[in-house]
């Protein structure tokens, strides 16, 4: 808030124009080689290149016009609103929340429960597959993973860059144990969680004394170690080839989704054969797992261990001087976070029917962490929104076939996933530096809840 733009400043348009041109030139410089020129090799393995001036022009124009609009219109508008708010002098007193906001979670849950039947009635059994799977299950897996990591990063404040390791432990636990012992998903789900929690503790011990950057590096290494073990321990894990034919989950053993089984779900109900039923079932399974994660997290936050996590994030020394065993506090955070990762992992294996080290690369950890940070470290709602935006956005990109009309037939929108991811992160961090839901819900109240809460509690006012 260094500059205070008053409406209709005469120099404003000139300034916007200048900055717009500057941004355009900058974009030209940045993208000239990356976008403007495409390299390829021909049949003789020779390097050939050809220009893509049209695409380059689009990039430059987007940057230039975008900057012009932001400086000329968006920024003054925002400043004006801030100014008006400051003049009014009301520190956003939390007036009674509207019906929607008050019951947001219940409404969201009902909407999610109704989602598969609604989609199915609109798009038909087969047509609903995409929505239930890509836009439902895929997002919910990340919601669950991010909520699990949130225990470690958001609540306990321990920066974990190797979270995907526990996801992998869960997935391989299910894949291997179901193959070896023929145990069902419902038996192996808790076992996978326990095994992952065990590995969480294994990771926790050596990093007990580490904080911040050092902790991040060691957890990163841990994630890579697990992945390398999965690649190289070929006798057990089949290395990079992975394990295929992982058993499907069943409806508690009563109905199966195996095509040949006599108790096949579709057969039992006289429905036409379709893989959609399995996906819909999986949708409800992951939804239930997410709810379990949310419930446990919310409960724990109100219990001594949850309070200890949050206190640990704030000040470890103060924690100790208040009689909190920080060793146990950290280990439980790692263990519980890892357990949720393990649940998600075994679910992933059952859904995919195939696991390989490919699925557990560092990028996954980074994406999950990004979701937690974007959501606002600690806020379940914020994280869910971030997961929907990020994962749903990625899936949407796949759908944007029409972009090929603009950018040419060899334009594959998925490839720009990470670019968009990065842009989104920068945007969120610029406008909402504490994430989508940056304010923390307090857990302690005396008698009745006063309306004062929340209003003064936003940081960064003073």
């Amino acid at each position, binding site marked *: 808030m260094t500059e205070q733009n008053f409406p209709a400043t005469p120099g404003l348009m000139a300034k916007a124009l200048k900055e717009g041109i500057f941004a355009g030139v900058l974009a030209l410089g940045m993208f000239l080689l990356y976008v403007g020129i495409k390299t390829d090799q021909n049949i003789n393995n020779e390097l050939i290149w050809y220009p893509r001036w049209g695409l380059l022009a689009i990039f430059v124009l987007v940057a230039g016009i975008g900057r012009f609009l932001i400086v000329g219109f968006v920024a003054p508008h925002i400043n004006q609103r801030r100014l008006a708010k400051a003049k009014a002098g009301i520190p956003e007193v939390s007036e009674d929340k509207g019906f929607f906001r008050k019951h947001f979670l219940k409404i969201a849950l009902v909407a999610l429960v109704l989602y598969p039947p609604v989609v199915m009635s609109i798009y038909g059994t087969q047509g609903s597959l995409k929505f239930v799977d890509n836009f439902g299950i895929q997002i919910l897996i990340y919601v669950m993973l991010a909520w699990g990591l949130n225990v470690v990063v958001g609540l306990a404040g321990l920066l974990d860059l190797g979270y995907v390791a526990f996801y992998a432990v869960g997935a391989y636990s299910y894949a291997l144990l179901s193959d070896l012992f023929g145990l069902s998903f419902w038996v192996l789900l808790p076992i996978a969680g326990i095994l992952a929690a065990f590995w969480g503790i294994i990771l926790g011990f050596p990093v007990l004394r580490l904080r911040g950057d050092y902790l991040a590096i060691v957890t990163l290494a841990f994630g890579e170690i697990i992945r390398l073990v999965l690649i190289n321990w070929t006798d057990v894990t089949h290395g990079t080839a992975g394990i295929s034919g992982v058993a499907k989950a069943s409806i508690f053993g009563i109905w199966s989704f195996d095509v040949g089984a006599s108790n096949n779900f579709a057969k039992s109900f006289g429905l036409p054969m379709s893989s959609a039923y399995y996906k819909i079932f999986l949708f409800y399974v992951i939804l239930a797992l997410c709810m379990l994660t949310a419930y446990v997290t919310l409960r724990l936050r109100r219990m001594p261990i949850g309070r200890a996590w949050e206190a640990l994030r704030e000040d470890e020394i103060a924690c100790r001087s208040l*009689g909190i065993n920080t060793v146990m506090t950290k280990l439980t955070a790692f263990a519980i976070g890892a357990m949720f990762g393990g649940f998600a992992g075994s679910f992933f294996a059952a859904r995919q029917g195939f696991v390989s080290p490919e699925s557990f690369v560092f990028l996954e950890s980074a994406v999950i962490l990004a979701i937690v940070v974007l959501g606002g470290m600690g806020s379940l709602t914020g994280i869910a929104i971030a997961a929907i935006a990020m994962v749903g956005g990625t899936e949407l990109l796949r759908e944007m076939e029409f972009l090929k009309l603009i950018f040419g037939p060899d334009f594959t929108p998925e490839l720009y996933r990470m670019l968009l991811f990065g842009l989104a992160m920068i945007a969120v961090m610029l406008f909402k530096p504490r994430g989508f839901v940056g304010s923390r819900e307090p857990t302690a109240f005396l008698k009745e809840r006063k309306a004062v809460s929340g209003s003064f509690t936003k940081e960064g006012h003073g």
Partner: protein
Amino acid sequence: MANPNAAAQPLLKVSGVETFYGNIRALAGVDIEVYNGEIVSLIGANGAGKSTLMMTICGSPQARNGSVVFDGTDITKMPTHLIARRRIAQSPEGRRIFPRMTVLENLQMGAGLDKLKYFNEDVEKMFTLFPRLKERQAQRGGTLSGGEQQMLSIARALMARPKLLLLDEPSLGLAPLIVKQIFEAIKVLNEKEGLTVFLVEQNAFAALKLSHRAYVMVNGKVTMSGSGKELLANPEVRAAYLEGGRH
């Protein structure tokens, strides 16, 4: 007025304690005793080792040589959280409240030892002692003023129902009026509830006036001790810590 009774056992007995940061010796054989019901203060210049002594009592860092005995138990090599569970509560240097938690939540953290059994009762007490905290109960710790943070830090320590309260420079950086309020609160707690207080201060005048007994620390050693009044009258102390200071 509680006076050290030669026959009674001290609540806290620090004997010959040496504490090191790496190779640097910050405490060079410190002996201090605090008896039940006393306010004892430790004064000394910046860098004398006052905070180090306070932290050594709490076991972080631990003393390399010597012993710290609390309530008849040797706590020299005990981990910090177990020392705290023996009811030594601390308002450390820099206050160290939890900035993102509300005032009430901070107090809750202090009451964890008894699993919040006396929480409501004790919170009311704290609000009587520091009415400012009551007004601010739903506000985040990090947005409180310095004086309020100090009050919160002391109140949080008191929520643990301590046998011994350690205060590290509660007056640091605060307006004189607030300092007066805080010292008044300490006095009330001591007189009404018999709370034992070990106070570290640079504000020697206020500390000596409040204390039953006091120690003077120079370069990691205790160089002088006596009743608060004696030290206030002592010309050496006056020259080093009082003249030109606050009156």
